């Protein structure tokens, strides 16, 4: 395992080394000591390597990730895994606002809670939050799946498009055009697979409710003006 200590190495040097890795590299295990909550750690990775961050990360950790697995052993700041394309990002603590924002693919797992705007404008990513999520999560969520084992804050799924939301706990309120939908077998199967990928065991998918778009605001019409 390659160990990089940010107490005596710059973030720039770390990211440059990670960017230089070829897809077939043998240096597949990395550990980053003393991250100190620095921003933009392990961003723009494009090789199938695993990077463990031994502590807290600042803003945009693992931003635009492709193929890599990034594990944050502490908390993650704003926009963890923002615009991720593929790979896995696992936050063992809590995540701040806009976790997984605009992400197109891959899997984001948050063991703790995620703050406001979790999954905002998500475009295909799968997000599993083992705790609760804050208000205005999944705002304008386009596609992908957001699974929440705890509760969801105000205005969940406001102006949502085709993303699927699964919440086990209470939902404080739903946003415009977001409605509860029937859980059919296909959704239960999907949820089981998502929970399995996130390493969640012993949870009954029957405890979840599914939410998605009523599709009433997909084309602007003046009669709906009050809904906006």
């Amino acid at each position, binding site marked *: 395992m390659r160990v990089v200590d940010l107490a005596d190495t710059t*973030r*720039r040097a770390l*990211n*440059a080394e990670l*960017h230089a890795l070829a897809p077939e590299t043998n240096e597949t295990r990395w550990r980053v000591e003393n991250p100190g909550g620095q*921003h*933009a750690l392990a*961003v*723009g990775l*494009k090789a199938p390597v695993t990077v463990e961050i031994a502590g807290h990360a*600042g*803003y*945009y950790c693992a*931003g*635009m990730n*492709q193929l890599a697995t990034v594990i944050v052993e502490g908390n993650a700041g*704003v*926009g963890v895994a*923002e*615009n991720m*394309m593929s790979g896995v990002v696992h936050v063992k603590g809590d995540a701040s*606002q*806009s976790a997984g*924002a*605009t992400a*197109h693919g891959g899997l984001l797992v948050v063991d703790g809670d995620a703050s406001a*705007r979790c999954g*905002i*404008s998500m*475009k*295909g990513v799968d997000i599993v939050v083992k705790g609760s999520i804050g208000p205005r999560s999944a*705002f*304008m969520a*386009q*596609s992908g799946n957001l699974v929440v084992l705890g509760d969801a804050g105000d205005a969940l799924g406001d*102006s949502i*498009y*085709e993303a699927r939301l699964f919440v086990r706990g209470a939902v404080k309120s739903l946003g415009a055009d977001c409605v509860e939908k029937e859980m059919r077998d296909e959704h239960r199967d999907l949820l089981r697979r998502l929970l399995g990928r996130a390493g969640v065991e012993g949870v009954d998918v029957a405890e979840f409710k599914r939410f998605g778009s009523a599709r009433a605001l*997909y*084309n*602007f019409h*003046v009669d709906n003006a009050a809904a906006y």
Partner: protein
Amino acid sequence: MDSHNIPRTLPRFSATFDPHTLSEIRRAAATGIYDIRGGGAKRALPHFDDLLFLGASISRYPLEGYREKCATDVWLGTRHAKTPIHLKTPVTIAGMSFGALSGQAKEALGRGASLAGTSTTTGDGGMTPEERGQSQTLVYQYLPSRYGMNPDDLRKADAIEVVIGQGAKPGGGGMLLGQKISDRVAQMRNLPKGIDQRSACRHPDWTGPDDLEIKIEELREITDWEKPIYVKVGATRPYYDVALAVKSGADVVVLDGMQGGTAATQDVFIEHVGIPILAAIRPAVQALQDLGLHRKVQLIVSGGIRNGADMAKALALGADAVAIGTAALVALGDNDPVHEAEYEALGTVAGAYDDWHEGRDPAGVTTQDPELAARLDPVAAGRRLANYLAVMTLEAQTIARACGKSHLHNLEPEDLVALTIEAAAMARVPLAGTDWIPGRTAF
């Protein structure tokens, strides 16, 4: 007297309730919805036409028109980027999306810009291979919607433009109506075909200048500090916005006035929010000067640039380059009277067509209809754009030589006077024939 012989006054329209206003009231009353259109502000505004160059005479030496060099090149992104951009002429093509424009139009913009030695810019909707392939220098926009945003394209870009706003609608997002959402546009934006695609007005993962600074750091880290990072703002409070963009780490600031076009926005927004570019340049330049970064952080201005005189005036006021959007579309063939009959069938006339959001542009520019789009030959349209850019550059050189300048960037406010008090105050140059700069000097 015979009542038939009494002289009668002509019918008189109200200046306040003019025919256009009356027609808009009737349209609103009939439909219950505001008017959406493309383009920029159409009302008369203080503009570059209100400025004149003084030219050389006894107190200044001119340069020989066809003999002496007047350089036009510009470097952009010299502050932090490892690979700044070097353009042959300081007029760039502004961001316009594939989606709003046809694939052929985007390709033509790339071809024209490349022939002229300048850059073109993506838009809300991502980068197409045709555009990348035909653009020697391509600026990749980073927008609130992040439609089509991916790190592979980010790495292919020559510069990254973080879009905060645009002059036509500062503070507003966008809307691409369902009729323009073809299969390809839908796929690039990760949304179903045929639905309205709303573009957010705020970025999803940062708020305010402190966050923007961290966001710019992230983009630099992802691209290994190679590419210039532009920040684009709509002209509203240019002094503060430029200062905050610089504080956030921008290499280049793009400032777009209210005459700058949009693909689709409410007419009321276009005409009533934001300020003209003429009023925005000097405060922006002042911010750069106060920070000691004028010419180090480059300023690109846009919004109603039409010819080499506009470009020369913008540069004289302190800009490093200008950008064109509407003018470039016209050069490609948009609103050409050759399509007059078809424009009339759409209820308008050539030159006034602005229902770009409806996607029925007979010129094949602002459409996703395959048959209409196929009317635009990207090679010929690109050639027209290159010709137009060459004329703009020659015109600006003509003026600069007359003012005795060996480089367009040597033009300065001292070369200018204003025709109106308003323009004198906004551009901070004297009213012609006086020493008076309203708000700056005594009359």
